[in-house]
């Protein structure tokens, strides 16, 4: 593990809100597609948005790890 530089910390913190919002939107979009195919209704939207939220957090954790891991 290594310490983040100020630019890396800024990149992570400024990306967090946008990534979470984008992931929820993408999840919601997937829910919309599932609803169109299966007709399950609001449940698909809810599941999609929830999955998107989890994916956003998962993606952020991976991003932080990418900066923290020492390579080479």
């Amino acid at each position, binding site marked *: 593990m290594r310490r983040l*530089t100020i*630019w*890396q910390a*800024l*990149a992570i913190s*400024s*990306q967090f809100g*946008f*990534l979470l*919002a*984008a*992931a929820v*939107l*993408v*999840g919601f979009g*997937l829910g919309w597609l599932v609803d169109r195919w299966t007709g399950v209704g609001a449940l698909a939207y809810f599941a999609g948005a929830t*999955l*998107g939220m*989890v*994916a*956003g957090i*998962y*993606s952020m954790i*991976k*991003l932080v790890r*990418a*900066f923290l*891991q*020492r*390579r*080479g």
Partner: protein
Amino acid sequence: MEGFVVEIPAAVVFMLGPIPITNTIIAAWLAMAVLIGFSVLATRRMELVPRGMQNVAEFAVESLLAICEQVAGPKGRDFLPLVGTLFLFILVANWMGILPFWGESDWIHHGVHWTHDHGPPLRSANSDLNIPLAMAAIVAVWVQWLRIRSSGVLGWVKHLTIGPPPLLELISEISRPISLALRLFGNIFAGGVLVYVMTELTKLVVPIIFMGFELFVGIVQALIFASLTLAFMSLAAAEHGHGEEHSRATH
């Protein structure tokens, strides 16, 4: 302060056949011209001990290489062409955005209400969502190519859908370029509007402070875009490495 008019879509300057050429596209071309011109001048008479523009160019390349290697290790050198190009283009385009004739900061046309018929001559390239989206799409394609190279098409599809964890990778991969583009666009567009509003409200001195702030935001945003691109590529490359190790272990 009657009638602030701020429009999100870029103004169409002329049509090239069916393709509309907007003031942001022209601003992007100008940023490219500045970079190409600088590169030509800096490398025209290269010397062993660099001086002048060659010195500046070498400093920029070495600094970017150090950033790439800090995040991605020795593989960072492979990422330098894309990451460095994106950084320099975003930086120059952002900084050119506060020049006269560029969008909301255009004090020469002060008082004119911009519309599609009478738009500002130019506008910062990154204040048009299409340009950050195009750059983010290039990054996304490159990252996916790194992944496909590591695990093959079937393995890549499996990784995106089944996981583990299932579907999270797919949503992550789609949302990363979207968030990358939205952040850059949001910051640069908001900065342009801020300078425009301050110019309308206070006319003198105060806008200069905000323009200085925009110079700072310009380099910060370029660094953030480059750093995140680097992190996404380094993640894909690391998984590439894991893939190779895994396949060596199983054979």
